[in-house]
């Protein structure tokens, strides 16, 4: 942990060195590749201006409504950027607004598990297996019959709702980074960050009340959702996710195109366009 506190970008909580190495981006502000050099010396403290236009989800949604601690949000930003990194195809998680998308999801019905069955008793696989099953290839794994815990079981058996799982998980990421790699997660090299994330993916990290692979699975699911959901939810900023995929957004009709052989590329439209707001 070589970086001094003064070396930090106050806004992101990320050290300057790690920040540049990892992303070229700062959570909440977007910096293009061309600005990279300038950024290094003097633009770090500045938020690049957001210029809303007709089809943008704008900057007004870029504020936390669920996650209290800025530090937790920075971990979320850094982790999602590793899952969906910026590359020459286009923006990564931070630039797409994915951390804000996830924050908003956690504040709502889905994050609160309000339409899920949350009545006890909660018999968690984690007591026996250290993880809930999250993926189909885990179906054959689990405790043996002697434990009296059925295998495999329906996957979600936690008493925690998703927003609680995220809060615990994000803090656990930092704990693991500190313990195993001697630095805060946001300060680690990308390769080390990936190692930490992989430990969660493989369920090797012990979490209370939920398997770490369950948390990882939710993190990955929401990252992908944030890249490609309609921009009204705060991710897929300016439909940049859709542009990468050449996805046209909600359209009234493909009746005249459905039989055509050649690929038809369309500029995307959003739900806002479609509904005529």
């Amino acid at each position, binding site marked *: 942990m070589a970086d001094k506190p003064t070396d930090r970008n106050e806004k992101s909580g990320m050290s300057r060195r790690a920040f540049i190495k990892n992303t070229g981006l700062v959570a909440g502000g977007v910096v293009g590749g061309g600005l990279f050099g300038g950024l290094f010396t003097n633009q770090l403290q500045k938020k690049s201006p957001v210029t809303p236009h007709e089809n943008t989800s704008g900057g007004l949604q870029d504020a936390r409504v669920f996650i209290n601690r800025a530090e937790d949000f920075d971990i979320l930003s850094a982790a999602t950027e590793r899952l969906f990194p910026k590359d020459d195809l286009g923006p990564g998680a931070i630039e797409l607004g994915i951390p804000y998308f996830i924050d908003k999801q956690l504040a709502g019905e889905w994050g609160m598990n309000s339409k899920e069955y949350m009545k006890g008793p909660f018999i968690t696989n984690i007591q026996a297996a250290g993880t809930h099953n999250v993926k189909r290839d885990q179906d054959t794994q689990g405790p043996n019959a002697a434990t009296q815990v059925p295998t495999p079981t329906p996957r979600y058996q936690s008493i925690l709702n998703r927003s609680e799982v995220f809060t615990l998980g994000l803090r656990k990421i930092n704990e693991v980074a500190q313990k195993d790699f001697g630095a805060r997660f946001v300060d680690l090299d990308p390769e080390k960050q990936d190692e930490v994330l992989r430990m969660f993916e493989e369920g090797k990290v012990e979490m209370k009340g939920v398997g770490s692979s369950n948390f990882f699975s939710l993190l990955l699911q929401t990252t992908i959702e944030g890249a490609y959901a309609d921009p009204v939810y705060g991710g897929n900023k300016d439909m940049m996710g859709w542009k990468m995929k050449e996805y046209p957004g909600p359209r009234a009709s*493909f009746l005249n195109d459905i039989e055509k052989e050649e690929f038809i590329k369309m500029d995307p439209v959003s739900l806002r366009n479609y509904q005529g707001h």
Partner: protein
Amino acid sequence: MVVKLDKVDVVIVGTGWAGGVVSAELSKAGYKVVALERGKNVTRDDYIGVKDELRYTNRYEMMQNLAPETITSRNYIDEAALPVRTRKEMMAGTDLGGGSVHWAGATYRWKAYDFEIKSKTIERYGKAKIPNDMTIQDWGITYDEMEKYYDRWEKTAGISGEPDPLGDKRSSDYPNPPMKESPAIRLFKDATKKMGYHPYQVASGNLSQAYTNPDGEQINQCMFCSFCTQYGCDFGAKSDPLVTVIPTAMKTGNFEVRTGSYVKRVLYKGGKATGVLYVDNMTGIEYEQPADVVVLAAFTFTNNRLLLLSGIGRPYNPKTKKGVIGRNFNAQFNITFLGARGFFKDKKFNSYMGAGALGATLSDFAGDNFDHSKLDFINGGGIELRQYGSGAIATNHVPNGTPSWGPEFKKNSIYYTNRSYVAWYTMATMSYWHNFVDLDPTYTDSFNDPLLRITYKYTDQDKNMAKFGIEKCSEIMKEMGADIVDEDEVPQEFDHVYDGGHYAGGVIMGADPETSAVNNYLQMWDVDNLFVVGGSAFPQFAGHHPTATIGALGYRASEGIEKYLKNGGQLVKGKQESASV
């Protein structure tokens, strides 16, 4: 305190295709009909302009709220079942029109073979072909008898299609021509024709042209907009109860639908159903709705659960193998719809366009269309290539070996977004003594009534058939010219994910009251004025999508209910068949 309401002729639980068809037919015949729907009231307006993948596909907007009630699930009879808690794992449609509103539209008639599977299997292969554990049985009705009901429903729904070249006899063509062919569909058809198979266009409940059905209901032409499966239609162009049978029933003046009405019990006295007990979700007030005839036409889970909660019929006991309610639960789970995905390096498709039932299919490996003498399974399934129209969130298919996140995932998932297709096997699932439903001893709903418990495991038959289908699909994908073909793996165990809507049985049809709950009019053997309609009546699951058969059973039941209302009594004489396993 329970508020007792005035008696009606018929009370129906559920407003999907099953309840909708019965509602329309009986109210047209002049009977006073009340339908109870647990979900909210919706109209076509609810589905206009809401093309939102996150909300509908990923957050299950049209699916049952599980907070008050879900199911529990286990594989083996000596295990404790656990609740299926999230809507990602348990999707059943709700609201007016039920699961029949969010359906894709794929329409198949089940085969003459399916309705007489046990007899026909023994006839062709001998008794030894049916394993001891397997409890398949004939339906007590033949395809020839079912044909007119299929025909009726297809006309009501305006199905757009062409006949299966290997299909059974039809009295008339589909009412509308097949859907347009996309390049991917052409590729599948060309390849499979070359292989000597008989591809044809999937018959579709997304309409190929504007249509007025025999009841005078207008259904619009499909726009291929892709927001179809798990959505209500933006254009009234997908055939569902909201644009057909429910308005037909409404027009008669004899029909009332009460949404937000959660039925808790079928009331039963002196060998007859006297009505139902339900609670109004908005007020919490309980009502008794008396009726001459009670029709359970809810989802499979609810039909079974209401009978078990009400103490009607003899519950199935897997230890003694006696009893009928809950017996022969059968379904298409994660071992069905397996196949092979092809990745095309240099070919791009307009994959974002499509419709729920847009696709090509073939029946060369369905039912008993192929010789099973040397195969280690019976029955089969369709092979389909569907072009639903890929959502941006859903479409992240990457060749095997690609990590599931990070730079390589991003690169491949974006590259192959419009460059991959899957062919899958819609295989049949047979029934077994060890697959059944009953009431859970531990978990309860918000009224403290027990949840329904599913016990379900796979057998060698399932695994062998899945493997066979995957190989066929893989060959097809290669013939289609895919550069990479990834084959699905056969799961070893049922994964407790209920996400396809194809769950059936438990209140099954048959000729013998010892092994079936309802006769071939869907009338309960034990209770003359109680009819149980829907997928719950399937004794086993055929190798094609189920909706047309549920619609057809709706017409069959309507005929039976009318007969009962006129003459009373048991409509069919039960036969004693050879003892079950």
